[in-house]
């Protein structure tokens, strides 16, 4: 082999993402099915069922309940998809199959592994979000010209959650309680207390605290602002944006360190 070929690739991150995407492709059917069935169930049961009651009562924020709900459901799906796509591969990479240690024996670095996983997770999440958005469209949940902007808002939430989960999953050596904690004490409460089904302001003030911690709430607020005439003042918008951006930066930076420490023993 020529020395020209045996140089360290500058695209290590993308090679890691490529491997992840090949892996996901094996599950393409299931991923696609979940991406379609998930919104359908929510939209039929809550959107139409609960929505008909609420709309009979003049809707929320002056728009139909489905319009109000759409950005929240989209952001929630993005968060769920991106979290799954970093948590399970990270557990497999460090523990179940130890594939990260294989990658680490090549010129690939710990940072490239972490970032490659993140990029692959966001690629999958983008596809899920587009499918979800199309479903929302057909259910008539998107009735403004700017409705498509709910997609970038949802991806922003997905990225924030994925970055944090990447660091957290990298820390987990014994998974015994990890999945229970993430499922029951993070994902479900976040879904319920982030102003998903009603404006957060309806909650007593001490419960609004959960919303402030939640990337779902911040992304939903941005999504609502972008998709209909939902009133948010400038400083609040900046806060929503900053919280999500901070989660991405802090989560990724922490994951770089955690991955490096664990792969360099």
């Amino acid at each position, binding site marked *: 082999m020529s020395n020209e070929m045996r140089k*360290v690739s500058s695209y*290590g991150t993308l*090679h890691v993402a490529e491997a992840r995407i090949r892996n996901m492709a094996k599950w393409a059917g299931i991923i696609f099915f979940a991406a379609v069935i998930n919104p359908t169930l929510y939209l039929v049961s809550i959107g139409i069922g609960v929505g008909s009651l609420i709309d009979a009562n003049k809707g929320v924020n002056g728009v139909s309940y489905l319009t109000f709900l759409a950005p929240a459901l989209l952001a929630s799906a993005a968060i769920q998809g991106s979290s799954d796509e970093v948590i399970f591969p990270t557990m497999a990479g460090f523990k179940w199959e130890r594939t990260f240690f294989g990658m680490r024996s090549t010129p690939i670095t710990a940072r490239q592994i972490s970032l490659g996983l993140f990029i692959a997770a966001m690629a999958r999440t983008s596809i899920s979000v587009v499918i979800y958005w199309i479903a929302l469209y057909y259910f008539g949940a998107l009735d403004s010209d700017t409705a498509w902007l709910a997609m970038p808002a949802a991806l922003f939430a997905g990225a924030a959650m994925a970055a944090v989960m990447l660091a957290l999953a990298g820390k987990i050596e014994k998974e015994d309680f990890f999945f229970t904690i993430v499922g029951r004490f993070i994902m479900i409460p976040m879904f319920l207390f982030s102003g998903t089904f009603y404006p957060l302001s309806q909650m007593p003030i001490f419960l609004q605290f959960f919303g402030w911690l939640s990337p779902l709430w911040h992304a939903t607020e941005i999504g609502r602002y972008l998709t209909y005439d939902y009133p948010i003042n400038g400083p609040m918008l900046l806060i929503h944006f900053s919280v999500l951006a901070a989660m991405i930066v802090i989560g990724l930076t922490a994951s770089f360190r955690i991955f490096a420490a664990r792969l360099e023993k």
Partner: protein
Amino acid sequence: MSEPLIHARGLTKTYGDFVAVDGIDFDVAKGESFGFLGPNGAGKSTTMRIIGATSVRTSGTLTILGKDPEVNGPQIRAHLGVVPQQDNLDVELTVSENIFIYGRYFGLPSSFINKKIPELLEFAQLEEKKDVKVQALSGGMKRRLTIARSLVSEPDILMLDEPTTGLDPQARHILWDRLFRLKEQGVTLLITTHYMDEAEQLCDRLIVMDKGKIMAENSPAQLIKDYSTKEVLEVRFGSEKNHEMVDVLRPLAERIEVLPDRILLYAEDGEQLLEQIAAKGIHPNTSLVRRSSLEDVFLRLTGRSLVE
């Protein structure tokens, strides 16, 4: 002599108070097949990880291909093929895909890897399994795939950590044959093992390690010559009586080792020694004459058996 491929002086690795590798010196020349022999926990795998530029040494100097792994980790890893103790294949992907993505980690173009895959599948005798998910392979097949995968980048140094642990005898022999071929092609091999037959088969030169230190260094044949006799007579009197017999037997042999189940008597001529014992009216339950092995060298150096 040209500059060694790997050069280590005072190489040390500590984890808190525990000293895993304790100031070892060694050089490995190009094309050499170099072994680390020792029991579990001797510091072999740690040494391998440091050479593999995935673990940072605590102190000492180390150069691989003239570079310091602490500074040039990825550049050094670009020249290495690594076969870890535990397979870390992607079990969801097929045999071919595993080789492919591994080649991509080295930044190799798809065209190059795709040309390489049939050659590696043949080497690993996995042609018929190329589209099978790794999940479905036997232990021996996974091991061969891990080795094939490590060769996709045509490494200058192939590092094998306990390559045949957990394999049945037939799978071990197939693997040894494959490693022999690589050696013939001039690939530098670095092997850790706690199997003395493996070390004897594969290594031109080896270091015997125990508790992080080097106990001896030489070719397998020379180590046996230096630290043992030509032959060994193994006798058994039954676990109760073994100890009683030691004092009687000691003056007859050059050296004697008492194991829980048997007594080892070291001599140049084992049959002759057995006759001497019989002439004294001593009749062991069973007796066996064999050539000295690296196991005997290890026993001599550490007072302990390799496989405990």
